[in-house]
């Protein structure tokens, strides 16, 4: 008999969620993580620390500039960056401790070291004292790491990834962000609020590639007004570091001189040292592990989920895949609806999106109707002073089924949850329009956008 029913390699959202679900289904589970803390990229150097800094930097900016017209007068507002970073680290430590507790609660064996497959049913933990485990099944959840551009070397200091940009020990005078995706915009926003001049360089002629282009255009206007500088259609050809800082070289233009560079051009899968060759699993051209609809690799009892298999690199996508993979393995049923996985950009205003974009519907020739409603016409948004943005709903022209919802506005990341449930349940715009929404709430903008699909908004 094998030591374990399931060995999970990787302690991120995919790995720990898969481990917990397998334990709930009565399986004997081990989880191997190379880092000291469980939680993976998301908890250690991703979602959680970035949200802590986004919220803290928002409070700093609001108290510095935003309170006066609300009748709150404060003295000089000072930034204590070390304290802000300490708060962030404490949040991470608390949540990591919580994960340790969850592993204990579910009697999951936690092993520290680099997990390496060593042939069918065998996993080696390369730590201080290497040990070999036997197992019936293996779940690979090794995640991803920041990628870079040709001639741009991540030096872990002046030229860094999101990991470094979550822990700068001083506010950069001038931060250049390469890449206008959500990571670049979120961290660019953090340091702009704390006092940096921030220049975002993007190869495409738009920001937030893949998101609804109308909403991305709204976002660009708002971020510019907030003081982020954008140079779109700009190709970075290299970065040089000098004694004083960095020089970002650009195709056909003068280099941009700055003191820090954040490279946020995407992420690549972690498959080094994983021993894939010992079970005859090959990665694809981009380095991802190919899997079938049940997340099984080319090897029979080896599965893979999360960033390492590609697709949307989102924590909740990884979690859904891990649960579906484990449930299918042990119960015969597991499913992920990729059409109903939300994406959120945690800037202010936030951007929340689910389903098809208008661009995708046009391209696929799907007939649709569109409803929009601005937060400027929402009473709660007026009272809160967060009137920027709108809700946009796309529904099928004939069936009225909701195909996509895109929100830019305060708390869009929370508001999008209603749209996710609606899409998952096959709801129409009329269904949402006929649901009571509490007044006054921002969620009423969703109801009004749904009414607007049929041209009958009540409050505009």
């Amino acid at each position: 008999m094998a030591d374990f029913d399931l060995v999970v390699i990787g302690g991120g959202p995919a790995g720990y969620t898969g481990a917990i679900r397998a334990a709930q289904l009565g399986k004997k589970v081990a989880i191997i993580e190379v880092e000291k803390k469980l939680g993976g990229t998301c908890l250690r150097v991703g979602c959680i620390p970035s949200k802590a800094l986004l919220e803290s930097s928002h409070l700093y900016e609001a108290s510095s500039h935003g309170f006066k017209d609300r009748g709150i007068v404060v003295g000089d507002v000072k930034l204590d960056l070390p304290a802000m970073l300490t708060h962030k680290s404490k949040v991470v430590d608390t949540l990591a401790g919580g994960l340790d507790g969850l592993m204990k609660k579910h009697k999951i064996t936690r092993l520290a070291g680099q997990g390496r497959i060593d042939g069918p049913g065998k996993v080696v933990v390369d730590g201080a004292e290497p040990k070999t485990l036997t197992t019936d099944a293996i779940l690979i959840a090794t995640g991803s790491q920041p990628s870079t551009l040709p001639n741009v070397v991540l030096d872990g200091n002046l030229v860094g990834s999101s990991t470094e940009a979550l822990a700068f020990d001083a506010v950069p005078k001038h931060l250049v962000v390469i890449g206008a995706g959500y990571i670049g915009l979120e961290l660019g926003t953090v340091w702009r609020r704390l006092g940096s001049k921030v220049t975002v360089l993007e190869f495409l002629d738009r920001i937030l590639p893949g998101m609804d282009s109308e909403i991305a255009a709204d976002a660009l206007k708002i971020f510019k007004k907030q003081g982020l500088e954008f140079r779109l259609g700009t190709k970075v050809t290299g970065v040089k570091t000098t004694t004083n800082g960095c020089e970002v070289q650009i195709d056909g233009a003068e280099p941009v001189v700055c003191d820090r560079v954040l490279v946020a051009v995407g992420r690549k899968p972690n498959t080094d040292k994983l021993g894939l060759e010992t079970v005859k699993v090959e990665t694809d051209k981009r380095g991802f592990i190919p899997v079938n609809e049940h997340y099984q690799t080319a090897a029979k009892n080896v599965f893979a989920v999360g960033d390492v298999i590609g697709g949307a690199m989102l924590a909740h996508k990884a979690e859904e895949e891990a649960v579906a993979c484990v449930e299918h393995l042990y119960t015969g049923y597991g499913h992920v609806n990729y059409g109903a996985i939300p994406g959120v950009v945690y800037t202010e205003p936030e951007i929340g999106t689910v389903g098809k974009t208008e661009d995708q519907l046009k391209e696929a020739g799907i007939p649709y109707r569109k409803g929009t409603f601005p937060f400027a016409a929402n009473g709660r948004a007026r009272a809160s002073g967060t009137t920027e943005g709108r809700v946009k709903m796309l529904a099928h022209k004939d069936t009225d089924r909701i195909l996509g919802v895109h929100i830019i506005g305060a708390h869009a990341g929370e508001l999008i949850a209603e749209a996710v449930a609606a899409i998952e349940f096959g709801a129409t715009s009329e269904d949402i329009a006929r649901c009571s929404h509490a007044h006054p709430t921002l969620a009423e903008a969703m109801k009004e956008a749904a009414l607007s699909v049929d041209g009958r908004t009540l409050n505009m």
Partner: protein
Amino acid sequence: GGHVMPAAARVAAQNQVNPSQVSGTGPGGRVLKEDVQQALSKPAASA
């Protein structure tokens, strides 16, 4: 049948029932979890 709700899809798959053969009693003919459970409790209908 109409749109199959997420939990109904799970019960149907685990019992090898084709959810599109189940009559939905939810809004707009949606197939609910209880509709699949109801279909399972009846003796198999001849095709």
